[in-house]
């Protein structure tokens, strides 16, 4: 009986999300939802590396790789973005391999520094390589309507695409967590030496996680490029938007868990828009001040993120629905 309640609640939620575009005609609302879904995806992808204890502040690089590869193939060669996806995945795979070289020797903050440097190098190359990327002037996705071109007049198609991407990313992140890889990553994060002694190939699992995370981010980047029509290094390689924000979402939601990133993204994305609207126009910069304070306070007062505050609630909820708490 209680299982039913669960399914009905879940189904209802899913239905609600599917019906949103019909209920809200406003593309602004859809845009916020779409943006939130993108960030759920990004944060979940970022979080796959966090399972292994590695915090990247360079995911903008993979995001931009995906966006540029997809857009360049489309704009310059006329290849549909759906086919371009393979190119984006391949390119981000190569990028991930390159970044994995320092990863083998570096841990903690130093790995984080390496990811920042990696992104900076790519950003500067993207700016300088004008023949390919048009430099800072950027590339435009032409307005040719059609599913094949990923160009739509209404906001609904991208709403569903982003929703699918978010669900897919979270599903993948959940799958990784409860696979052999996930167990090994978590073991490596908690004690790399003990994990190695128990047969966990530290380098292999970390690199695998990096590659999964990187390619997933690149896929999101590609769709984002087509969603935002304009590609330029200042936005795609933006530290604040695509490197720091996913990390922030995850930390605030609850890093290294499946649902923490989702909660973080759902909380932070509308909040960011809200703050910019209400505070940013009152006093420039005020919204970021609030952001900074939220970050400092989170680390200090609840380093486990929002999820750690919800856990007591969750336990009660589980008891209520009669869930015994098995992970499978």
């Amino acid at each position, binding site marked *: 009986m209680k299982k039913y309640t669960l399914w009905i609640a879940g189904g209802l939620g899913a239905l609600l999300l599917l019906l949103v575009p019909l209920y809200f005609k406003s*593309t602004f609302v859809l845009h916020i939802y779409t943006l939130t879904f993108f960030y759920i995806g990004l944060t979940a992808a970022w979080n796959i590396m966090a399972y292994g204890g590695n915090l990247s502040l360079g995911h903008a690089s993979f995001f931009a790789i995906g966006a540029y590869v997809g857009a360049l193939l489309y704009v310059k060669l006329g290849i549909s973005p759906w086919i371009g996806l393979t190119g984006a995945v391949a390119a981000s795979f190569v990028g991930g391999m390159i970044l994995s070289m320092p990863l083998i020797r570096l841990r903690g903050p130093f790995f984080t520094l390496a990811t920042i440097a990696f992104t900076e190098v790519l950003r500067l190359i993207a700016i300088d390589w004008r023949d390919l990327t048009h430099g800072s*002037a950027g590339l435009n996705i032409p307005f040719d309507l059609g599913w094949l071109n990923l160009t739509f007049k209404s906001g609904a198609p991208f709403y569903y695409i982003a929703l699918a991407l978010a669900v897919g990313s979270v599903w993948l992140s959940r799958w990784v967590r409860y696979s052999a890889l996930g167990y090994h990553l978590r073991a490596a994060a908690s004690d790399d030496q003990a994990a190695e002694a128990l047969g966990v190939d530290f380098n292999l699992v970390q690199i695998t996680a990096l590659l999964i995370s990187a390619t997933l981010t690149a896929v999101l980047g590609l769709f984002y490029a087509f969603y935002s029509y304009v590609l330029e290094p200042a936005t795609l390689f*933006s530290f604040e*938007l695509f490197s720091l924000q996913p990390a922030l979402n995850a930390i605030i939601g609850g890093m290294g868990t499946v*649902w923490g990133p989702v909660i973080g993204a759902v909380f932070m994305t509308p909040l960011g*828009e809200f703050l*910019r609207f209400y505070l940013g126009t009152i006093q420039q910069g005020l919204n970021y001040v609030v952001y900074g304070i939220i970050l400092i306070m989170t680390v200090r007062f609840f380093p486990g993120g929002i999820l750690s505050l919800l856990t007591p609630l969750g336990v009660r*909820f589980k008891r209520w629905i009669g*869930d015994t708490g098995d992970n499978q």
Partner: protein
Amino acid sequence: MKKLAMLAAACICLMQISVTGVFAEEKTIQIGALYPISGNLALMGEESWRGAEIARILRNRQGGVAGKQIVFRQGDASTNSAARSETERMIEQDKVKAILGTYASSRCMVASEVAARKDIFYFELGAIANAITQRGYKTVWRTCPTSLDFCRGQVNFIINWLAPTLGKKANEIKVGIAHEDGEYGTSVANSFATLAKKTGLQIVSVEAYSNTSNDLSSVIFRLRKAAPDIVVAVSSSQDAILLSRQANELGLNIPIMGTGGGHSFQSFADGLGPQANGVLNVDFTQYHVNTKYTPGLEEFVKLYQETFKHFPRAGSSLANFMGANVIFNILEKTGGSFDPEKIRKVAMAMDIQPGHTATGWGVKFDKEGQNVRAECLVTQWRDGKLVTVWPKKFAVMEPILVK
């Protein structure tokens, strides 16, 4: 699964918060004002907004448009992504029927794209990338000059004044370009190269640099090696000062001609002191100009000073003032209606000769929506003031050559 359900609920709640907008009142005319007012473009974004704001205040004092007061719905285009969100929000929540802005070209490209796809009017008053009006949208208009106009101003000046002054023919003049590698610098540099090819100027060196760089000695060294007759600099902000300082430190004795941005700021002269003297610049109309050709400028400056307690920081505010006035005039003629057909008709019919607006620009839109009578003036820093020196009818002083 159960968590998903909880999340969905939370999600919807949160979004409702950000969605509660204020709906348009009937007695006012609602226009979106989209500028980057935080982030790294905040300074000029805000300065540009001030121009439009002054125009609004002034027009409202005079009774508004078609008897209605004008209200700006403000948006912060701090990033491209924000530009998109804010445009969506202004259109959907604030129900604006027209948007003006944006100062930065990349923000405009994103925002106008969103607006155009919804048939909402977008008036660009300050961004100069050529591409903005070249995408075939019927609802995107621009009142200010393009980057090509900037370079036209420069090239004309170089050919008609610099070449005779140096005693050279136009095709003997060597030009070095130093530009910041952002979207602004790149687009101007590209335009200059195109124009130079047509007019026979020799470009001997093109140096791109990052505007966050704290050392430009390498740019100077490369220019020194190329030894041009004039350096065309496209700087966005503090890099203008840095470039001039390091040119001086490292003995680059070549006249510098800025291209708006950093070279138009009062801080440029304040920071450089006497060294700023003689630095040329091409930009939107600035304040030390022949006011016979710029009716309304003095009124603008007066109101600006009353409102913001200091002299305007750059010509961008004036350009936005002029542009906003053009929009108000159009709306006045449509009787406050945003009907696409009406607006288009009125706008296309507009025909103002140069010398009748606060910037001195005329108004005549081409089919793409670009104001073809917008032009850039050459100015020069003289004793801490940016005075107009070219073309002659706008000039208040004669240009001088300072190496």
